[in-house]
Each structure stands twice: as structure tokens, then as C-alpha cells.
């Protein structure tokens, strides 16, 4: 089980390949990559993620431990960037490895739902209208609540 929090860019393909190599006996791998979104009707030029790294590592390790207890997982990895990113750049990657697809999919969703509300990252968008902090969304709380 691996957790990494860093300002360094990462390559989702290389991370996926390295993760799959660890999969002795696995029948299913799920990988999810969150990227910086910029829509034509709501463009952004940059996304800055602020982070409290010590708390982020503690929280992400706790989330992975809970997923491991709850689902039949052989491995799980969370990679999360911080700093200033451009449109299309990967922000987060969640990967799960399991004997079967159902726990692999469910655990990946569980990890994402928890990290969105419980890991100390804050997004600030910069675009034509200036810079603003992204507000927390009630639907993210609701997505986490369905696992409780």
C-alpha cells in the first residue's frame, strides 16, 4: 500500500505499469486519474493546489487502511500532486488491485470519495475572471456518506 504526496509531476501510464507489475495473483486492476479540467465555457489557465503534506500523508494512509479492511485488496496506491498545474495535467491517481473486478472498482471509488473531503488539499483556479478558491461541494460529502 503506497501513498505519495508531491509537487513533482507524474506519468499515469508509467505509474500504472509499475503498479501492475506488483500484481501477483490479481485478476483486476482499476486505475483512476483526475486531471485539471478547463472547459470552453469556463476556461482556466492554471490550478494551484495548496497542501498540508504531513496531515495529507496521515489522512491518505488512514483512508487506504480503511479500504484495505473493507475490500478484498491486494494493493492500493494514491498519488496526489500539489503546486501549480496547467489544464490536462494529472492531479491525482488512485489504483487498486484485487482478485476480482467488483472490489477493485468499489475500493477505487471509496478512496476517491474519501480523499476529496478528508485530505488537506485546497484548489485555487486562475482564469480570465481572475483567481478564486474552489468551494467544497455538498455532493462530495454525499458521495462519502454513502459508504458510512
Amino acid at each position: 500500500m503506497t501513498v505519495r504526496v508531491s509537487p513533482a509531476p507524474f506519468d499515469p501510464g508509467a505509474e500504472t505499469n509499475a503498479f501492475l507489475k506488483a500484481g501477483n495473483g490479481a485478476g483486476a486492476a482499476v486505475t483512476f486519474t483526475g486531471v485539471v479540467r478547463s472547459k470552453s465555457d469556463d476556461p482556466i489557465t492554471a490550478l494551484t493546489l495548496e497542501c498540508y503534506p504531513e496531515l495529507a500523508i496521515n489522512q491518505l494512509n488512514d483512508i487506504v487502511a480503511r479500504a484495505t479492511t473493507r475490500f478484498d485488496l491486494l494493493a492500493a496506491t494514491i498519488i496526489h500532486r500539489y503546486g501549480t498545474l496547467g489544464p490536462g495535467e494529472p492531479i491525482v491517481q488512485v489504483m487498486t488491485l484485487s482478485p476480482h473486478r467488483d472490489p477493485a472498482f468499489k475500493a477505487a471509488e471509496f478512496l476517491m470519495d474519501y480523499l476529496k473531503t478528508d485530505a488537506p488539499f485546497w484548489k485555487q483556479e486562475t482564469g480570465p475572471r481572475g483567481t478564486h478558491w474552489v468551494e467544497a461541494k455538498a455532493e462530495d460529502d454525499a458521495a462519502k456518506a454513502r459508504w458510512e
Partner: protein
Amino acid sequence: MKILYFAWLRERLNRGEEEVSPPATVATIADLIDWLAARDEAFALAVEKRALIKAAVDAKLVPHTASITGAKVVALFPPMTGG
């Protein structure tokens, strides 16, 4: 004790951290927020919606009822928006 501030709370206070020495009567996160608000009008305005403010003691997420006794680093911040 050191206090860390993040995101819009850091911007509104115009500082990312500060050293404070609250009296022994300040026992919990809620007490600490009250104490900081009483000595600083900008802080009082920034934390007007108390329920929005989240807290960590020595890099562990805690509720407002948590003790700060013996804490080295307390962090105060808005709801998280990662992922």
C-alpha cells in the same frame, strides 16, 4: 504552540503561521478559536462561520471539541477540495 493557516483562511489573515501562548483555560480547539478571535478582529471576521473551520492537532484531523493540551502544532483551515 505554532498555529498553521491554509487556503482562504491564510489569505484573509495575511499569514501562514504564528506562535501563540494561550492561557491554560484555553483547553480545546473551540476555546482556541474563541481566544484567537477575541484578540484579533480580522481573525474573528474570517472564522465567523465556525462550522466551516476544520482543525488538526500535530497533523491529526480533530473535531472542535478536541483537547489542545500539549499540542505543538495546531492547524486551522477551510473544508478540503482535493482530488
